[in-house]
């Protein structure tokens, strides 16, 4: 699958790819396809990277002087966003979206961008709305603060507040009027409970709840989002939920009008309420499946039970959270603290019985280095022969290197994976008895400075190498951008990626700072103006 790093008019696109793998023009500022020598890169954030950061500063001065932004496709709530939102709005913690249709992977993260709802989605939206409304009416006072469903004046106020939050910050007057009018009419015709039920359901099936509708401020070209819309985006990106009253008050009070204000607000929001987002990010980034999906062959690993797997996933989440929250720690620390050898991460990149250098190497290559690996050609036999007596898995995998068609891509994955050879399929460290863990990182296919590459022995040395690389740090910033925006990056995001990178550097490559940098960037706070009835771009 092709993934293009940010393209930018000033970047030099090589005419073709020297390597068969990726089959993709590689953006390099110096116009070469890069070398692979290991270099000692000063970790001062000023040299190099620059794939994003210095592109404009060096060669495109002026282009980022006024805000630029990508055009956001209409974003539909994901399952986690739906569940968090109904918990925040109605106190409903039953996670009704568990059964909703799963999202697609967009740039590596779950997203509903691009695919229209199916009738199945709509059926489930209605069913969830009816169930939530029924539960709420059953405990009305506790949930709404209104004495009963007959307390119309109180309900009017509650509905208005709730609808604005549910609609991601924005409640146009005509929609407010319609909700209240329909509520009053139903209460009068069908009774107080039915009226309240309709009102709650009408919020839950509204396109303004299920989608994030952002009109932006008046004007043409790139326009700022309305402060309420920024509040909606912040809540979605940092909480995967809807805004609360203080956040909307910040919007109304002019405190989200500039980048500094948004950054300050984001900092406030990234407290324990962001626990879920950090867990969601790290499990998707490290490709950790559900507890069931992480299961291995029970006869070989009888101790790898559901509680054990649950605990191991939690362990990875906690490592990520504590590192993210420590202002003195950055992405390099996360690698050196062993995120890649977390048992949940290793197990997720293993077969039911056997280890997989390929899957492990691919994780590092695609998720940590942001290189792209094309799928095997259609006529490839993806299976390796069974290991003969005395052969290690590595010996068998090594056959990839002998077949040029395989080697084109596998040279970028397998040798990295060899560094994890001491870890079995459930992530247990078997030590030296498991053979060699000599590996090699080939220089990135698409990168700015080529400050990565070389031989290493074992995951600690690998982490040390990765943690020093600006390519790796830049990749992490890009993953954050994709996750926060809920879409793949486009050219219009380039200036913002550069802004975010500089902030990330200034913030010591801290995970939390990476998020704050993205949400205070121009592309997060702006959009292209909408041409009603015209093309979206």
């Amino acid at each position, binding site marked *: *699958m*092709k*993934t*293009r790093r940010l393209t930018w008019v000033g970047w030099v696109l090589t005419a073709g790819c020297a390597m068969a793998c990726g089959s993709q023009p590689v953006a390099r500022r110096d116009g070469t396809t890069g070398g692979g020598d290991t270099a000692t890169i000063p970790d001062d954030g000023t040299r190099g990277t620059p794939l994003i950061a210095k592109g404009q500063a060096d060669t495109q001065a002026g282009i980022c002087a006024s805000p630029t932004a990508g055009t956001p*496709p*209409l974003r*539909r709530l994901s399952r986690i966003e739906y569940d968090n939102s109904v918990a925040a709005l109605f106190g409903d913690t039953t996670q009704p979206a568990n*059964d909703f*249709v*799963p999202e*697609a992977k*967009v740039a590596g993260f779950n997203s509903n961008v*691009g*695919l*229209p*709802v*199916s*009738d*199945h*989605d*709509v*059926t*489930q939206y*209605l*069913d969830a709305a009816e169930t939530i409304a029924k539960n709420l009416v059953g405990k009305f006072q506790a949930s709404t603060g209104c004495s009963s469903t007959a307390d119309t004046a109180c309900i009017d106020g509650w509905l208005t507040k709730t609808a604005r939050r549910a609609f991601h910050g924005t409640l146009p007057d005509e*929609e407010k009027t*319609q*909700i209240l009018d329909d509520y009053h009419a*139903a209460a009068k015709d069908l009774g107080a*409970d*039915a009226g309240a*039920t*309709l009102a709650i*359901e*009408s919020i839950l*099936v*509204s*396109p303004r709840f299920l*989608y994030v*509708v952002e009109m932006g401020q008046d004007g043409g070209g790139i326009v700022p989002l309305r402060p309420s819309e920024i509040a909606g985006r912040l809540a979605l990106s940092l909480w995967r939920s809807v805004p609360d009253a203080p956040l909307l008050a910040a919007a109304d009070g002019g405190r989200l009008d500039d980048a500094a204000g948004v950054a300050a607000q984001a900092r406030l929001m990234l407290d324990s309420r962001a626990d879920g987002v950090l867990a969601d990010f790290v499990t998707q980034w490290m490709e950790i499946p559900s507890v*069931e*999906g992480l*299961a291995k*062959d*029970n*006869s*070989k690993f009888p101790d790898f039970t559901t509680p054990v797997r649950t605990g191991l996933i939690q362990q990875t989440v906690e490592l990520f959270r504590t590192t993210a929250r420590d202002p003195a720690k950055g992405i390099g620390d996360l690698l050196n603290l062993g995120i890649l050898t977390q048992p949940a991460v290793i197990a997720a990149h293993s*077969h039911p*019985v056997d280890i997989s250098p390929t899957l492990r190497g691919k994780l590092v290559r695609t998720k940590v280095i942001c290189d792209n690996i094309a799928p095997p050609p*259609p*006529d490839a036999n*993806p*299976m390796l022969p069974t290991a003969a007596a005395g052969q290690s898995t590595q010996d068998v995998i090594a056959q990839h290197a002998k077949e040029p068609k395989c080697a084109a891509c596998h040279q970028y994955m397998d040798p990295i994976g060899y560094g994890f050879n001491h870890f079995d399929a459930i992530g247990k460290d078997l030590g030296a008895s498991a053979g060699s863990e000599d590996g090699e990182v080939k220089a990135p296919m698409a990168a700015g400075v080529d400050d990565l590459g070389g031989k290493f022995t074992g995951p600690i040395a690998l982490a040390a190498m990765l943690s020093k690389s600006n390519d790796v740090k830049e990749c992490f910033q890009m993953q954050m951008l994709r996750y926060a925006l809920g879409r*793949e990056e486009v050219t219009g995001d380039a200036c913002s990626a550069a802004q975010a990178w500089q902030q990330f550097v200034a913030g010591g490559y801290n995970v939390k700072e990476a998020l704050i940098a993205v949400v205070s960037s121009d592309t997060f706070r702006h959009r292209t103006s909408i*041409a*009603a*009835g*015209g*093309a*979206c771009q």
Partner: protein
Amino acid sequence: MSRLRLERRRFLRAVGATAATIPFLRALPGWGADPASKRYLILLFTPNGVVRHLFGADPSTTVPGDFTLRPWLDPLKDYKQKMVIVDGLANKAANGGTHGPGISTLWSGAGVAGDGSYGRGISIDQAIATQINAGTKYPSLEFRARSPQDYENKSEESRMIYTGPGAPKDPWENAATAANQLFVGLPAAGGTMTAPKPAANNQIEIRKRLFSHVDGELGRLTPKMCTEDRVQLDALRDGFHQLNAQLMTGGTSQAVASCSQPTLMGTKTLPVASRDMIELLAMSVACDLTRVLSLQYSAARSPAVFDWLGHTTDHHSISHTSPQPHDLGTTLPAKSDPEHPTPAQLASYTVPIKQMTDINVWYATEIAALVKRLSDFGILDNCIICWGNELDNGSNHDHFDQKFVLIGGGGGKLKTNQYVQLPVAFPYGQYMEPGVRAHNDLLVTLGQLMGAKIDKFGDAALNTGPISQLFAT
């Protein structure tokens, strides 16, 4: 996913998806009201291809016209007289692609570029559903039995039913939710059929007002949006319209006496999910909830691990270790014939062949359980089950001359108890030749057997007309 691809998807949706869903806004019951013509189409999918010489049938050497089932179909032997094995159709629309293009063209016959995006055309079941207008509660129902190892995300490989280009239809994956939502008002298991219970607490009236409210809101919002975003909102509006039609009419029903709420076990493993989905599907037929159904096992490139059969390797990996068709040729390359390998040729494949056999015999056993359920309900003869796969030879990712298994009776329209051998490519593998029929012809046949007016389906150039042998005279 590249930006380019996203753009293309959005474009495809802009031109196709909405138009395809409109016919679901159905009018009054059509011909389906006549019990004699009550027919059900059930599309079945199992993944990762086959080992040819073990799947399908052989012509009898003694009785002209008769045939024997090969080992993988042994679990279905009691129903041999209700079966048709169709051999020799190439999936040309898959255009040499692998798993994803295989599944996304299986029921659509609409060519793909092989670039990993979703299928390019409506699938035959959906085309039939829009035409036959049977007046049932649902135009169609889709079920999927998932294994714990299945990739959770929505992707080309996990979808086989399409309402239009780039518009996959999502199947029910949670049996309990499906049972709760689809079988509302029907009697509990063991109970007797009664009139549906009236909805509680003004529910119908509230729904009516809710649909009206959201319709008005979409009517105000959509014109403010740009084109691609309008497509999204139009799909939502179509969905609500369709749901409204379902909920408000309730549909006509010719349920059999056994119709009841399905009895389920849970969905955590593939064996349990399979039986639950079979129960849902069979009961949907018994209750006449729809005439067009499908059941998808796992997904294309299935990573399911059949641990209850003692396997530790996933199905996809196993499939690739089974023999390559060109390894089985007797006089390579001119006469390669994977239908009749010699024991010597198979000697080095003992383990994967046994494992592929375990898996596919298990699948056939599950399908036999579905067939038995339908038979016990007395409605098997009204059904046409069509069982397909995203590949022909699993080891080779190809779509040479795929075998399809049909079971049922189609209300007397389907000519059963036969092995239909269509001309296959020679040398083996030259399946794009004009002399080899594309599986589009089977899709057209299914449409006509179900009473739809369909002369061509999928890519027009791949059609040569229905398969005449499949029609009872």
